[in-house]
């Protein structure tokens, strides 16, 4: 069960090698979390992530999960929920793709969309139903500022996150009053292995800062969390910039 401050005792991470997810897991394990499920494609990185959490005292287990294989989500995730209540699901999988290449290779672009959007739709719905049945829990969805307004430089990734963001908001409204809390997290540029080698955008942040924002968001039962918080203001201005101007902006 979550405590008065929204800190979960059990956590399911979808996308178990995500740096943001692991920073969050470490932070929560240091507080109250005892059970952690890391769902992801089997890999040495996934195993070592689990080992690291075990060292911190958590009962961390891995579970094979492929975002692209939507058909399997029901069965894979059903097994996890059958083992006991999950207080928090962190939907953290996603790929950035390579905009320049993906524009020329439609199938690569579709893979970004399928991972980030359709994979999240099936996994999100499966988890939402399980959380609703247990009457409590938080579904934390890692969206991105890129989804707030699609940019020339990464609109394939951006559009997939826009879809995910809209889906998560709608799901949150659908689950309002059921005891299940859906929180959309919109980080800006996060310095991590996913963005390694890319030019840093203004107001860049770190996985640890996102983790901290998630913990605060859980305490406040927030529905939307921006990291850093100033992005909320910046983006609400950018949202209204006319297209001809927005196109020319160096963002």
């Amino acid at each position, binding site marked *: *069960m*979550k*405590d*008065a*401050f*929204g*800190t979960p*005792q059990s956590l399911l991470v979808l996308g178990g090698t995500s740096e943001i997810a692991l920073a969050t897991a470490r932070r929560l394990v240091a*507080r*109250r979390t005892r059970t952690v499920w890391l769902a992801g494609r089997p890999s040495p990185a996934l195993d070592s992530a689990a080992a690291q959490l075990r060292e911190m005292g958590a009962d961390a287990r891995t579970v094979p999960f492929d975002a692209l294989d939507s058909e399997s989500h029901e069965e894979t995730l059903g097994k996890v929920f059958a083992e006991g*209540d999950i207080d928090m699901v962190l939907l953290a999988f996603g790929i950035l793709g390579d905009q320049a290449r993906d524009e020329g290779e439609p199938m690569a672009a579709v893979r970004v969309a399928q991972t980030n959007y359709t994979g999240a739709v099936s996994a999100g719905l499966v988890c939402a139903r399980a959380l*609703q*049945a*247990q*009457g*409590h829990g938080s579904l934390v969805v890692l969206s991105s500022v890129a989804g707030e307004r699609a940019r020339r430089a990464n609109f394939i990734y951006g559009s997939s996150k826009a879809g995910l963001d809209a889906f998560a908001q709608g799901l949150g409204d659908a689950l309002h*009053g*059921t*005891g*299940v809390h859906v929180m959309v997290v919109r980080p800006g540029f996060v310095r991590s292995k996913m963005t390694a080698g890319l030019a840093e955008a203004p107001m860049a942040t770190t996985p640890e800062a996102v983790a901290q924002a998630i913990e*605060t968001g859980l*305490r*406040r*039962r927030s529905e939307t969390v921006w990291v850093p918080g100033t992005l909320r203001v910046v983006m609400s201005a950018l949202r209204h910039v006319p297209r001809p101007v927005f196109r020319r902006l160096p963002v």
Partner: protein
Amino acid sequence: MPVTGWGRTAPTSAHLVRPRSYEETVAAVRECAAPGRRGGIARGLGRAYGDAAQNAGGAVLDMTDLNRIHAIDADGGTVLCDAGVSLHRLMEVLLPLGWFVPVTPGTRYVTVGGAIGADIHGKNHHVSGSFARHVLALELLTADGEVRVVERGTELFDATAGGMGLTGIILTASIQLQRVETSLMSVDTERATDLDDLMARLTATDHRYRYSVAWIDLLARGAAMGRSVLTRGDHAPLEALPTRTRRSPLAFRPGQLPAAPSFLPEGLLGRTTVGLFNELWYRKAPKARVGEIQKLSTFFHPLDGVPHWNRIYGRSGFVQYQFVVGYGQEEALRRIVQRISERGCPSFLAVLKRFGDGDPGWLSFPMPGWTLALDIPANLPGLSVFLDELDEEVAAADGRIYLAKDSRLRPDLLSAMYPRLNDFRSLRARLDPHGVFCSDLSRRLSL
């Protein structure tokens, strides 16, 4: 629908059932026991601060419709009533007959069932002990769907007293009452300038009073740390009343103000407002006043005057923190008060009290020693870590945390705080092997 405790934190959704008869209650419990269900828990008036009367995904049985008073022995001073009867109702009925509930907490709006389940205490704990000590017998609906008569002194009784509703559903209870001549209180008020002064005064003269409590200003720092107002008293004898009131000495008319609105913003109770309130509250108290006649409700239940007062903390709610440390652990108490005061926790409802002997309930909270209760807005940054640190201090001093108020304790500290926890767990495993009775509290702390 989403349910929370009085602190309005951690809402979870449950199926609310409102049985209107014993038969409906039995049927509801059978329903909870069906395969695939997530059990049930009894709920009274929802005054437990944390998640004791919540059951995510399962059933919450609102017992307040079972509210008949079956029999009153006006000579011997006992009452037999349903568990859904509130202490408020008991006072309304019993005071005109010259009887009063044996123990009352800071609110009248708790049910008899809740009072036994949490084994509540009041300002008279140092004299009278906890509520369950005055319960002669009760009827308990257990997981197998049977109704058992549970006499005082039995194992099941001691597990149920303070058992947070996890042994079954209390249907009725017979309670030994307290004889009173009037419905008014004779109250002595005095100020203590700091924590040492307060503890000295309480230690020296508490035994002279049936009821005793100290309001403490936890925001005061330095030399004034722990400054407080002691209010102690007893039921006023008839001759102490002014002539006009003497004509109807047992009248019970608690006044009530309008309810707190539901749209109050967060952060109303910050360091500034609470600091100001505490300053005024301390200054307005007389340095020493003896024999003041007060209404029952003023003395015992000042907050009941404002319905839904818990809304003043806004939507993120608040946390109650109540612990007890034994006599001889005054240093630990002093350290904790100092940490709270240094951190500036805005608490305007903090009270300190001396407990008497411990009570037989296995998970009963009171033990001989000092208990401090305070309320803190849940959205205070860093509060979670801070309270964990206080828990460590409490555990190191062999103290404990009150489960009826808890919403955040770290589970591994519990067995040190409640040495009979394992007995409780094994009795539950025997009596309720499939976990028909469970709550968010029992899941969170693995009770």
